[in-house]
């Protein structure tokens, strides 16, 4: 008998009380992101630096084999904290992270504001915190795949290729630096993306805004720095701040003569402002207009 003719039938299961009620949001968000072909392309492009650096680690260990062929390469291929900083705070990776955020995160809240989906979420046993956790975890997932995962793989590969633990003995803190800086970059981009995604109902507008603020802050820094030669203008740039903090995490010389503490403070302030805006923009009582 067709279901419609069978009438309404009860479901005889038990509703679960999940410890992580936000997990379905994350799972669904990741699935939806991978449905977009531009996102898939960007995601694989953003993994290119990781493969490049991995090849670099291999080459650095087998340098004796290549030394005769490429002169001067030994000075470039040194796997040390500077190598990690070059990966994590490099222009290309930061740019690709931004692209990932634009393609996977711009519509995370904007689309749901536009199509009034928030009321459906909040009519469920979900709190605002669960909702944000679920959305943020989508971004954390993608960002982790290009930050902490490659970083730890680099360390493991370095140990395997070198056949000794000397690298870890020389830099025992490197694993923590990789995790710490990855966590910071991931947290920053997650807050930044969710905040921008919540300020408009238009996905295109939020995508442009995500991109524009990042680029504009860097351009602004460039203009002021060129005019006044004052390194403190680096604090205006999101990218420069990330690079400053990255240098501190990996214990290498910072690109600008400004304390990394200021940069960290700028980034944390931006996170706090983002959290505040998110809290204001996404209202738990929006369930009924």
């Amino acid at each position, binding site marked *: 008998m*067709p*279901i*419609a003719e069978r*009438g*309404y*039938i*009860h*479901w005889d*299961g038990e*509703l*679960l*009380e*999940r410890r992580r*009620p936000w997990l*379905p*949001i994350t799972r*669904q968000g990741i699935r*939806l992101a991978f*449905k977009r072909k531009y996102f898939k392309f960007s995601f694989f492009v953003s993994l290119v630096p990781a493969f490049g650096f991995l090849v670099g680690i291999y080459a650095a260990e087998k340098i004796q084999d290549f030394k005769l062929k490429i002169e001067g390469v030994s000075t470039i291929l040194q796997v040390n904290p500077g190598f990690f900083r070059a990966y994590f705070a490099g222009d290309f990776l930061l740019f690709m992270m931004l692209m990932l955020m634009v393609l996977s995160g711009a*519509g995370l809240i904007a*689309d*749901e504001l536009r*199509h*009034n*989906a928030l*009321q*459906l*979420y*909040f*009519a*469920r*046993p*979900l*709190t605002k915190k669960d909702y944000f956790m679920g959305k943020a975890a989508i971004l954390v997932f993608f960002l982790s795949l290009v930050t902490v995962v490659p970083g730890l793989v680099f360390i493991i590969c370095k140990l395997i290729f070198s056949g000794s633990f000397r690298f870890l003995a020389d830099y025992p803190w490197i694993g923590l630096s990789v995790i710490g800086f990855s966590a910071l970059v991931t947290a920053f981009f997650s807050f930044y993306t969710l905040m921008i995604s919540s300020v408009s109902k238009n996905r295109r507008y939020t995508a442009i805004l995500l991109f524009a603020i990042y680029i504009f802050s860097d351009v602004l820094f460039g203009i002021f720095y060129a005019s006044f030669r004052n390194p403190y203008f680096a604090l205006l740039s999101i990218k420069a701040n990330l690079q400053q903090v990255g240098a501190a995490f990996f214990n290498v010389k910072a690109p600008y003569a400004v304390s990394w503490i200021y940069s960290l403070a700028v980034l944390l302030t931006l996170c706090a402002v983002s959290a505040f805006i998110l809290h204001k923009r996404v209202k*738990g*009582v929006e*369930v*009924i*207009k």
Partner: protein
Amino acid sequence: MGIELKDIRFSYGKVQALDGIDIRLEGGAVGLLGPNGAGKSTLLKIMLGFLRPDQGEGRVLDYDIRTEQTLIRRRVGYMPENDCFIPGMDAVTFTAYFGELSGMPRQEAMKRAHDVLFYVGLGESRYRQLETYSAGMKQRLKLAQAIVHDPKLLFLDEPTNNLDPQGRKEILELILEISSKKDIQVLISSHILPDIEFICSYVVILNKGRVAAKGELANLREASFRLFELKVKGEPARFLERIRVLGCKVEETEDMILKVYMPPQLERKAIFQTAVEERIQVRQFLKSRTSLEDVFAKAVGVD
């Protein structure tokens, strides 16, 4: 137990949205009516646990509205008034997703999503992207996501919006069937009074934050008015003026029938007496059925 609210008061700043709401609803379908700004939305927000009342107490499905909001929302289904969906999803994924968010195991949610989509008439189009759905299909989809986790209490906000007459009839029949289940209570907020009349046997009418009327629809019809249809011969102007003075409300229809709403205390004899005095011949005097519209108009004080 369904819903029990005692002396609920709530204000948005200086604006008193709810002013001493006392209701006790159990089983079946209940219509929640009221003009814009009457407090319906605020009342629903309080029942879903989104707002804490300034004063008063209440229980929904035996859970405290102040402290057990999550438990309430786990067992309640909500169908919002306006269109809502997530772009990029098909109907099965969408419905299963919200089932899962309500606490259903993943596989069960998917299985149940198929069932409820067939039930609301979207079985054939369940794999279509939601962006391509018509307004009527989106309305059915909202009902599907509201019932996917088999709630004990269903809040339906304007459930027949955007539907053509046939679609509206079908949705109303579905809701009627759901509400006929003894263990599911349905609370419908709608401006379309015939819909409420079709589904609900009990109504609560809010006005200016207070309960203006509540009770079994049949009793309200009886209690509020006695409606009679009159056909008269003669010049009725003076007659109408005099029966209005007696407390009757009179409407003239296009086919020259006078609809006379008599206050409960007035006897029919008074109408005939006035007619005699005004030399009016009463050719038809029929007791008419009071519509919900009449009850609503009386309760909120509009013509």
